């Protein structure tokens, strides 16, 4: 805070010691040259015009309406051409992630043949849906999550996986010989980078 500590005080009838004067002015100058803080500004002093763009928040977005055919012959997570974003954070921050996707099944739908989605940040899963049956022939998924990250480059990736689900333990156990096909159609990946 500027001039919080007055270095020297002058009383009436004192002889002015110029060093005291210099000390006081020097203290004030130094505070202005990089040490002002909240005590110098009345509450609510800074409005939108005084703050640089994206100082606190930056929104990243990737969407697609192109059909992405999911490989229904594997239980593995797949990313194909699903949404992804690369975020370069200038300081430590929190990434809030939201994913929406539309599942379009064709062919012989099965109660136990399902799709699930997840979002990863630098390979770490931050949000994952439950299994959604192909019996809901056209359906949508929406999941969200958040992860604190350090400054630097981060990759946010949408993944999808299919399989015949064992209801006993909720895991994908097999790929049936007769199975429907899956397209992930309209989809959005929204990332809010919050810095403060």
């Amino acid at each position: 805070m500027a001039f919080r500590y007055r270095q020297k005080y002058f009383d009436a009838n004192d002889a002015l010691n110029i060093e005291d004067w210099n000390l006081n002015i020097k203290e004030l100058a130094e505070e202005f040259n990089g040490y002002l803080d909240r005590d110098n500004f009345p509450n609510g002093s800074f409005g939108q015009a005084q703050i640089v763009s994206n100082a606190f928040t930056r929104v990243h977005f990737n969407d697609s309406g192109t059909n992405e055919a999911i490989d229904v012959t594997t239980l593995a997570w797949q990313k194909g051409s699903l949404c992804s974003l690369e975020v370069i954070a200038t300081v430590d921050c929190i990434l809030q992630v939201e994913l929406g996707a539309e599942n379009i099944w064709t062919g012989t739908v099965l109660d136990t043949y399902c799709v699930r989605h997840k979002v990863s940040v630098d390979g770490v899963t931050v949000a994952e849906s439950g299994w959604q049956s192909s019996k809901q022939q056209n359906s949508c998924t929406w999941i969200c999550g958040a992860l604190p990250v350090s400054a630097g480059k981060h990759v946010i990736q949408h993944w999808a996986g299919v399989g015949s689900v064992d209801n006993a333990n909720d895991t994908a156990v097999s790929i049936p010989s007769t199975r429907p096909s899956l397209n992930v159609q309209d989809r959005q990946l929204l990332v809010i980078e919050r810095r403060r």
Partner: protein
Amino acid sequence: MAHLTFTELLENSVAAAADVNSTLTSWNTQSTDIDASNVRDEGLDGRSVASRAITPSDGFAQFSDAGSVTLTNTSPALVAIGATNVICGPFNINESDKEQLVVRCSCKVRINATGSGAANKSVTVYMAYTDDASPTSGSTWNVIARSDRDFLLNNYGAGIDPPKRGVYTVSFLFSGGGSLSTANLHFGLFSSISGSGVNYYIADVHIHGVTYAR
């Protein structure tokens, strides 16, 4: 950055007017150039920032389960619950100033039919926007690309009811092309069903938007 200089006055010397004026001139000149460099790191907190400086506009519209509607329209139409159109707004945005508007919407969808009556009937739900200050169903609505979701029922045979319920949820970053500046953005929920003879139901609608300015 405003960098203040200070010309010291020296002991046992004449206090020259030039030395005093040098300091005053520096301070006078720099007084209009104070910026972030003059503030110490982590020197500001929430008290220093004016209300609505970071998120200048937000809003929401919600309709509870009791506020549901049963529809039969086969062409896309603005959803209205009772006499109220499902519209949220207005939102302000100035994209030239790098403001960013995020919109989210969710609702329940149900098709009111069982057995063969519901075969291959698909409900489509999507969002659209208008910059009409007083939006109605007759306003010019622009579809939010890729906000549409289909809910398709299938016929699984006699006596087997297909799944009838779904949840519509989307969130997106609204973009007007990068230079849009308006104070009247409104977002509405639209829907239709692919065939006649089956009605559908929409309820628990929530639309929320927030503008991130900084």
